């Protein structure tokens, strides 16, 4: 199970990159174009997609994928704790 959890990290990273590309090219950019042409609603929507939604999706999935690959979410893991904390 831990191997699947770790390898799935690659999937989340790839998904993060694709989601970022799709979000910018299919949602953010067309809305910004329409917004700059005079549609206020589209301008705000485009800015929110470009500056908030996309960085959030990409950042969260990339970091999550990296943590998965590092084994941070494995069921059991060996921790090194200083003796004095026992």
């Amino acid at each position: 199970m831990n191997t699947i959890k770790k390898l799935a990290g690659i999937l989340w990273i790839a998904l993060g990159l694709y989601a970022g590309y799709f979000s910018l090219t299919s949602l953010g950019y067309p809305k910004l174009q329409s917004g700059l042409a005079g549609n206020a609603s589209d301008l705000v929507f485009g800015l929110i997609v470009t500056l908030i939604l996309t960085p959030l999706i990409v950042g969260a999935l990339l970091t999550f994928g990296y943590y998965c690959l590092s084994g941070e979410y494995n069921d059991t893991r060996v921790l090194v704790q200083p003796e004095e904390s026992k």
Partner: protein
Amino acid sequence: MTYVVSCLKTENRSNYLTANSIPMSAATPSSLRSVIAASSAGTMIEWYDFYIFGSLAPIIATQFFPQTDPTAALLSTLATFAAGFVVRPFGALFFGRLGDMVGRKYTFMMTLLLMGGATFLIGCVPSYVQIGFWAPVIVLLLRLLQGLALGGEYGGAATYVAEHSSNDRRGFWTSWIQTTATLGLFLSLLVIMVTKLSMEEAAFQHWGWRIPFWLSILMIGISYLIRRNMSESPSFTAVKSAGKISKNPIKESFGNKLNFKYVLLALLGATMGQGVIWYTGHYYAMHFLKNDCHIHGLTVEKIMTLAFVAGTPFFVLFGWLSDRWGRKNIMLAGMALAACSYFPIYKAMYHTAGTGHRTEVDEKYTSTTTRTADETVAGDTLIATAIHREFTDGTAYDEITTSRISPAKARSAQSSVVKATIHLNLPDFWILVALVFIQVLFVTMVYGPIAAFLVELFPARIRYTSMSLPYHVGNGVFGGLMPAVAAYLTVNAKGSGDVPANPDWFVQGLWYPVIIVSVCFLIGLLYIDGSDNRIDDE
């Protein structure tokens, strides 16, 4: 050095272990009931305050944000989007930090007063006609305060109730808090309906719309008096008396990888999908019935309120079940069912509301055309064509086409607007209630146990901050954007021609919730443990 094997959750908690464990005890059932009643009432009123703005958006737009003024139109969009998407997470951070440092009780008292004050004042702001540009600016600022308050309220109420509950009943007790978002939306629709029915339409448009905003101050006042006598949560009191209050909850929550990875897991494996399911079952269903199915507005409000009323007890049922079957299992089942069912449900809604399968009564067909001079543009003429059709099953269809003839413009530039309205027969009305109810059921499955789930994921000293942010990012950003993204995908699929580019254009917006929920389901399935429901730092 010694090697210690521990499960993930214990690892998160052990990071904050105190040398001597902090003793805490759950409240007695009777005191717990008063804790829940006081917390839920306040939270429901906050949701009411927040949704009343959205529910009255068309009137607010005409009063404060005239489309003839481009700046006012921009402020209108900002008021709609910013409060839900940008400010709520900031409210979560600001009040979450306060809640972890000063206490849960005082923090959500503050959010209550802030929300109530802002809502009441929105109802008092003079219109754009009276004070011009200042009207939309003031309303935008008050709306931002509403978003800020909401960002702080939910985490406080959920944490407060959870910290009073025993480990084996936490899902059940916190599920009462989970009913408040739906009840708040229901209450806002109900108050608007009653206000509308109690006066002439013109009076409602002129001043009656302010009544739901004014009512807020009364409700907040009562809630404040009830909450004032509540004591601080046992977990926070124990952390405080042990001198373990966090000095910087934001840094501890998000600057420390051991905790931050759980924030990410809470967002991507739970709240992201939950937020999208909530907004699909509530706002998108309403938007779809009004704009894509063209059902009469008041009928849609009746459909939604009936589905909400029928669905609300299931929050408590699934919260209670999560104590027995596990939060993870209930929430993931809700996500799987939603992802698999949205397409067939929305296709059924569209076909139920459509007129294609009905038999028309030819003699009931009427068509009238009127021509009037446009008072706003000299020389222009407005032509309105009203068509009325009735069907053998009792359904009626009205269509009004408004065209403008402007001598100053070329013929091709003349605009035409079509507004269709369907008046449903009773059997189809109940079918739609059932179809919306199924979606509310999915909401209750993912939303009922989530407060307990989030609370159990984080240690007491930074709990308010750590759980508030993923909740409001998941709901505010991923969920809150759902209706807008889905509407955009639908319009794109429909195209601008007479014949839609995609025959199933009306369901293309559902790709957003289906994909988000599916990803969330996979992440939750793989990475959420869910076996430990203790919340004390022991």
